[in-house]
């Protein structure tokens, strides 16, 4: 049998080589939905980090007790609980952001990234590795969200993190970028670009 990667490998792999968005193409709905500005994207990434970290750690702790046919249920239960917690925290302490993200926070429950990490890593390896994996993957996820959000926010509103970077006097916003078509087009082209770069590197 192949040996399981170490904590460090897990951490590093999650960022680029196994990037959940550009490489594994998992959990694309929020990637498209919340990337019309950086703030929302980063909040989303934070929420994913929290849920993934908690779920990975908890699953890893109870991995000895899992029955094969029931493990997915346990994962779901764990994930759904943590997502509810994040959601309520946002509603309590970042009310406006919570309103802006709307249903996409609860949709983390069905985000395949988390369940696949529980399955691939947490249910097989120890807490330490699982945590490293969660952080690595979350950083990878955050980088991906940031790349898309940067393009969309700057072109779509002339701003970055809410600060104006392209002066309104000369810049006409490309409104389409913050609307649904812009999300698809930006991600599609960025994905093409990453494919091109990695092919070239080889």
């Amino acid at each position, binding site marked *: 049998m192949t040996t399981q990667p170490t904590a460090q490998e897990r951490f590093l792999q999650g960022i680029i080589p196994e990037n959940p968005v550009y490489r594994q193409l998992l959990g694309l709905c929020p990637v498209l939905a919340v990337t019309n500005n950086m703030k929302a994207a980063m909040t989303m990434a934070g929420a994913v980090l929290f849920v993934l970290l908690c779920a990975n750690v908890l699953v890893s702790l109870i991995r000895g007790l899992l029955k094969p046919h029931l493990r997915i249920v346990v994962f779901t239960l764990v994930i759904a609980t943590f997502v509810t917690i994040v959601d309520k925290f946002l509603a309590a302490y970042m009310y406006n952001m919570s309103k802006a993200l709307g249903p996409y926070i609860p949709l983390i429950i069905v985000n395949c990234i988390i369940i696949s990490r529980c399955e691939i890593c947490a249910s097989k390896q120890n807490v330490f590795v699982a945590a490293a994996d969660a952080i690595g993957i979350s950083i990878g996820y955050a980088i991906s969200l940031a790349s898309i959000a940067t393009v969309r926010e700057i072109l779509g509103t002339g701003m970055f993190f809410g600060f104006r970077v392209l002066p309104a006097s000369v810049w*006409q916003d490309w*409104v389409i*970028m913050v*609307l649904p*078509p812009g999300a698809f087009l930006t991600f599609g082209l960025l994905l093409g670009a990453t494919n091109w770069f990695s092919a070239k590197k080889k």
Partner: protein
Amino acid sequence: MSDNVIQVSSSPHLSNNVTTKKVMIDVLISLIPVLLAALYFFRFYALKQVAVCLVSALFAEWLFTKMRGRKASLSDCSAAITGVILGLSLPATAPIFVSVIASFVAIGIGKIVFGGLGMNIFNPAMVGRAFVMISFASLLGAGGYKDMGACIDIISRATPMDAFKQAGIEPSMFALFFGNTNGSIGETSALACLIGGIYLCIKRVASWEIPLSIIITTIVWSAIAYLVNPAENLTVMGHLFGGALLFGAFFIATDPVTSPITKKGKLIFGVGVGSIIMLLRLFSGYPEGVMFAVLLMNAITPLINNWTIPKAFGEK
């Protein structure tokens, strides 16, 4: 014996000498009446618009094919059509940067990413136009068409479709037919569109099924709408000559690449385009729906092709 190197190839060894380039040049010829009308009504605005789009479309085609490492494909003239049709579908007032972005998007995202000529699913010009229309809605929405400061009178008026939708002002049929109204520079003259369009159909460059079925569908729906509620709806003639209907039906919906290949498919396509145009004109937030109707039906075209495979000769 012969001085030549003998050539071998597969049959047939004759061809009717129609080439892609000739087809495309025929389209450009058919656009001449429309261009003349545009120049007549919009003067240098039209010249500027078409020239900017044409040049940037050609440049984009050259640039992107080069980036792909392919031979330059300017000589097939299809990029020129994209440029001209795009220019004609923009308002006289659209600033230069809008035209340039539209051309680049049209050629880049509308065409080259799919593999260039013949491979694209969506009409490149309409992809470009939709992109800028959604991006710069204030410049290309109805408000954008009006420019009080313009030195050409018609540009300071509201577009007829919009005037009707907003204020219920009945357009003059005479003006709609000949074209001295505001609007996208190529669409205003129904007469010019008809002349060019009929030339296209006679030359078999465009299939007559598409414009015909679009026009008939539009007539049917607008007649129904008018009969149900004459007070609030434009007449059949208004729908037919107003907006971009004829321009779209003859020059845009007929793009062979993005419309179905079989006769039956073309009829279905036309009925679809006509129906969506009327749905959007009657109910949507926009005064006009040609562009969206064409894009939506382009998307369905592969399915239409798939579902209208003709029965082979003798097949039961």
